[in-house]
């Protein structure tokens, strides 16, 4: 259990949010030209870092907006919160 500072609503408890997985995965421009391996790489393969990770979260029981956070997966410490489309601060 930890608190997340929603960039729209302020500090809320984690149970109000939904985790959306790794952030900044770019969709290939021409999916039709990719091999199955490359497509699977984009679709399924995630880094799953032990340490500082960039993640997408959704404030699903609140404002229902998506945003990004920088979280240390070993101790759940949140280093930064930033909106969609912004550059990661770390």
């Amino acid at each position, binding site marked *: 259990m930890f608190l997340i500072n929603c960039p729209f*609503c302020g500090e809320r408890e984690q149970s109000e949010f939904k985790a959306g997985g790794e952030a900044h995965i770019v969709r290939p421009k021409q999916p039709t030209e990719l091999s199955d391996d490359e497509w699977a790489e984009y679709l399924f393969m995630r880094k799953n870092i032990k340490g500082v990770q960039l993640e997408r979260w959704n404030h699903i*029981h609140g404002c229902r907006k998506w945003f990004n956070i920088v979280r240390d997966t070993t101790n759940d410490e949140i280093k930064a919160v930033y909106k969609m489309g912004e550059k990661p601060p770390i």
Partner: protein
Amino acid sequence: MLNYNRALSDEKSYQDLQIKEVQPTIKLIIRGKKREFFAAVGKSLNMLLPTKPNTSSQGEDLTALWLSPDEWMVYSNKTVRNDTNEYEIEKLLYKNISKLNLGAITDVSDQFILINLKGDKVYNLFESGCPFNFNEFRKKRGSVTQTTLAKIDVIIHNQNESDVNLFVRRSFAQHLFSWINDSASRL
């Protein structure tokens, strides 16, 4: 026309806590981002939408709650007639906003139940099943929050220190009400 059927079987009263359903009331969800949208809503409702997070603005007939940077709920301060489910205000907003592609208007009168909670123990009740910190919320009149109460999505509007309006989806109303009664009986 569901709005005219009571969702809760009765009103309950405990020491320092009264719970009752207020119906029928108008509830609308308004969504939009453009600058013209804000102007059009302001002109139609005769009041401005709150742009500061977790706040509300109150007019003579209507109250607007901030739900998200581009979403608001507008509800009527008083109950309305129960012989029609067409509302002047919705028609006006539809004409001035939806028709002009400035934003979206959705009538959620039937979807949401308005429960009014009164008394000094309102926040004791919330604290028994809610992850939200009410310390600042209770001090500020007109503050709004969307959170979970007993794991049920609710919208809570602080009208006054001990007078709170709570919105819950109709399908969850009975369940929430029985939880409220269970919790309130042990406060």
